[in-house]
């Protein structure tokens, strides 16, 4: 059994993330990580006729870039796993339409990239694939029109709300090669603590983050200090406070090692409110910032915990509360096995 504790999967042959690529919109390109992204679109349409088409194009570009950076071609990829925020995950399926790779569509809202890395690692560790391409995307304008209001409608954003990013990112997981490795994965449980406010997704996801981190650490007998950094993606300011509070109540203190990818991608102008969110946020921040730092050994062990709010506009209108989910992926720098910690 490669299971440790109740629910953590540990890889004896760690899958390697051999490449990462990100494509973002103009606003993200102007943010503090702007120069780190592989491609920045000049406008939110990326030369397409609709925002949905633009999101698909960005996802396709990110996957093409990731495959090229890995020194591979589509024929070498055994599986393509992807997801996004739109109904019927159209951005992913439509991007897969142009690829000749067996495709599995995933939905975990903003946690999708965590889900994809987890499943991709299982497939590789199980010996079913040499190379797996994983990706996720989100687009501010496609998400706004689906989850909120038309983009040109003038309404005031409330302080706990989060800004959906326009970004797509892709990673290539491989059974061998050079790069950061996936050491362990804890798949999250769906947690619902009764938040009904769709403008406060951070608080809705915080219990799932706290639960997954707690289970991950206790399964492996570790403390937060065993990680150089623990990233949540994307709780925002409000959700991060709630998550740290919930963990502290369980005796786990994340202050000092915790950062939120939703607070890293923008300069946090007032319009952003509590922070960024969206499938593309944690994925692109990982691909552009965390991945290179892991690769160079600047970060040696990182816990990436993408979190997703699993609601739909329909469930919110029917006054259902918002369930959250979070998956923890423990990643180590390339020299981990040789040199140890």
């Amino acid at each position, binding site marked *: 059994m490669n299971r440790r504790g109740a629910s953590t999967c540990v890889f004896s042959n760690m899958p390697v993330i051999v490449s990462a690529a990100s494509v973002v919109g103009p606003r993200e390109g102007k943010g503090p990580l702007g120069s780190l992204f592989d491609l920045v679109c000049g406008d939110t349409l990326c030369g397409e006729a609709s925002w949905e088409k633009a999101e698909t194009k960005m996802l396709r570009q990110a996957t093409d870039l990731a495959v090229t950076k890995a020194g591979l071609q589509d024929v070498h990829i055994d599986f393509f796993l992807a997801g996004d925020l739109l109904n019927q995950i159209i951005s992913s399926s439509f991007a897969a339409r142009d690829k000749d790779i067996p495709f599995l569509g995933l939905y975990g809202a903003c946690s999708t990239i965590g889900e994809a890395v987890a499943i991709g690692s299982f497939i590789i560790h199980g010996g079913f694939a040499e190379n797996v391409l994983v990706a996720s995307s989100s687009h501010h304008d496609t998400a706004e029109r689906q989850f909120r209001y038309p983009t040109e*409608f003038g*309404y005031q954003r409330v302080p706990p709300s989060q800004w959906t990013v326009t970004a797509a990112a892709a990673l290539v997981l491989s059974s061998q090669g050079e790069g950061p490795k996936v050491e362990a994965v804890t798949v999250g449980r769906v947690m619902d603590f009764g938040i009904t406010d769709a403008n406060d997704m951070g608080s809705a996801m915080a219990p799932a983050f706290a639960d997954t981190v707690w289970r991950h650490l206790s399964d492996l007998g570790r403390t937060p200090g065993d990680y150089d950094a623990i990233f949540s993606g994307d709780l925002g300011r409000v959700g991060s406070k709630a998550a740290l509070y919930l963990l502290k109540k369980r005796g786990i203190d994340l202050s000092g090692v915790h950062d939120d990818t939703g607070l890293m991608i923008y300069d946090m102008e007032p319009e952003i409110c509590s922070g960024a969110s969206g499938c593309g946020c944690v994925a692109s921040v990982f691909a552009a910032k965390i991945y290179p730092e892991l690769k160079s050994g600047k970060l040696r062990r990182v816990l990436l915990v993408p979190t997703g709010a699993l609601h739909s506009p329909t469930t919110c209108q029917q006054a259902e509360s918002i369930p959250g989910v979070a998956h923890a992926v423990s990643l180590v720098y390339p020299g981990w096995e040789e040199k140890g910690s």
Partner: protein
Amino acid sequence: MTRARTKERDEYNRLARSFHPPRPILRNAVSAFLVGGTICTVAQVILDYLSVRLPKTQALAMTSSLMVFLGAFLTGLGVYDEIGRFAGMGAALPITGFANSVVSPAMEFKREGFVLGVSARMFQVAGPVIVYGSLSALIVSILRVYVFK
């Protein structure tokens, strides 16, 4: 428990709310006052200008139409959502805000075609205002005609 009980839900909701940054009430009120006031001032100038040239009812109707046009025009230019984001009710409540709420979905769903997109979705935001506006107008009219004669 992955699904919290009622007591825990209440506790967590209280906790989450305590982490919310306070709504900037003063800032919102001042920006609503300034922008709402400006919109109404523009309308007043138009009304005064038209009143000396047209009969009163026509001048009123013409002013409303011009303000609707202005709201729609600024929405088309992509400006009104910025105004609304800044001014909240100051931009939403005047008739220009109503125009914005009709034109913005119409623009948004143009890509889904003129029948199932523009016309079907046009009243997505304004629909409730129209329905309950008409309903309350009907009730008030009935009261006025039959009760408070």
